[in-house]
């Protein structure tokens, strides 16, 4: 495994009405190719900001993000993003949503169709290709979001609490689906979540952030192969250990 993405001393200060808020303070870590890395932390700790800096949607105040040897300056199709509220285009059908990136890159039509069909099949939405977004359930909407990001064959997919808006049962189904997909590809994923359970279930490594200003508290590696058994002693012990870590980061104090 080799270093693929590197965050070098990332810092982000937001200015509003002459008040400065340090959202992220001196965060450095590397991500390997094919790895699923979670960023976990209390609410408002800047985990989404870190993700958006990798995406190029937010510019770091200091430091730099390097993806596959290139410094990030702006958003690009090599870093796909999946949003908590799905951010699908409501006037486009499922197929047209997935096709968006290929349309932008001016891929020939027949090639586009083939590719969209392949990814619709991967996320299990072949039968819903022509459905409108508002006809889908939350879980299906997010599968469209994932297919839309994957179809561009990005170097990394950035997921911003992608299952946060779903009910508990759907969330579990989506997590299992993601694990199954990971078994078939070597897609690199950065996954932001506030759910310890979700992070332990999915990740190769978990980056735990402190409360604001977000800094790295600990990076936990999980060797257990996926799919993981939530009821195993190992799983529960790790979950408990991380919970204890996070409790020290009580945002109310």
């Amino acid at each position, binding site marked *: 495994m080799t270093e693929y993405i590197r965050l070098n001393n990332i810092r982000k200060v937001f200015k509003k009405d002459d008040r400065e808020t340090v959202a992220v303070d001196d965060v450095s870590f590397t991500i390997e190719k094919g790895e699923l890395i979670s960023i976990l932390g209390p609410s408002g700790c800047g985990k989404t900001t870190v993700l958006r800096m990798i995406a*190029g949607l937010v510019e770091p105040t200091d430091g730099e993000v390097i993806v596959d040897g290139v410094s990030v300056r702006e958003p*690009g*199709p090599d870093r796909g993003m999946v949003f908590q509220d799905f*951010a699908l*285009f409501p*006037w486009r059908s499922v197929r047209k949503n997935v096709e*968006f990136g290929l349309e*932008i890159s001016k891929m020939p039509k027949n090639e586009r169709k083939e590719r969209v069909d392949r990814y619709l099949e991967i996320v299990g939405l072949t039968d819903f290709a022509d459905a409108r977004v508002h006809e889908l359930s939350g879980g299906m909407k997010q599968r469209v979001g994932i297919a*839309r990001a994957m179809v561009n064959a990005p170097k990394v997919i950035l997921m911003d609490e992608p299952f946060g808006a779903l009910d508990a049962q759907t969330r579990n189904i989506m997590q299992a689906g993601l694990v199954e997909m990971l078994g078939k590809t070597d897609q690199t994923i950065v996954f932001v979540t506030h759910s310890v359970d979700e992070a332990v279930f999915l990740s190769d490594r978990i980056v735990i952030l402190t409360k604001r200003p977000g800094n790295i508290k600990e990076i936990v590696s999980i060797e257990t192969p996926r799919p993981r058994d939530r009821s195993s002693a190992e799983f529960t012990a790790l979950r408990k250990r991380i919970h204890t870590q996070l409790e020290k980061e009580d945002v109310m104090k």
Partner: protein
Amino acid sequence: MASENSKQFRYDGDNRIHRFLRTALISVVSISMLVMVWWVVSVAVGSPAIPAPPAVWEAFINLMNHGDRILGYTMMDHASISLRRFLFGFAIAFAVAVPLGLLIGYSKILDEFTKPVLELLRPIAPIAWAPILLFITNPTWAPILVVFVGIVFPLLTNTIFGVKKIDRNLIDAARTLGANKMQTFYKVMFPCTVPYIMSGIKIGLGIGWMCIIAAELYTQLDGGIGTFILMHTDMGNWANGFVGIIFISIMGLLTVGLAEYAHRAMVKRMGME
């Protein structure tokens, strides 16, 4: 007697035909009440300026058969002259307001710059420009431009508002999918504002329709429903004037109704209810 009971008519809210009949019945009763009130007022006031419904009906039949013999147009001529001017004014307003609105919504500095001007111009009743417009143009263009002024502001305001209401996430999504500024603009921002543009059109058409009549009342030349009303009431043909008023009402209802329908259909088609 259960069998007899079941034959009785029962209103069923889930039945299309029942709903339609109900709406139709209520409308007929409601409009009949308006006609009654009009009749009572006509008798009570006792002025020739408020003719009773039968006299207006007679005038209507007469005008439809023989046309407007004073100005030398048929009623359909008058209606189509007004309608054409109205649509032309709308088209110009649309061509100006939509691109300008998208730009103002998009650019903060342009928004700050145009805001004071728009706030100053907006409260002016469009018809106030009629004398000036008539002096520098002609009786055809002046009403068109008054309609333009009437429609351009609500349409512009709605378009700007629509751009500002765009979900930031959709723009971020487009950018992470590789869209550049221009592509983001016409593939995401423009479709996002369509429902707002459509509701601007709806409001604008209502105002524009009032403008066209007012402007024609002022210009007094080259036909149109407004001119028809002014000329006939000036000569004491009050019943004819009322026919003109009824024409305004029905044509306005049709235009705004059509816009309403188009708005709803478009929003639904775009999945943006």
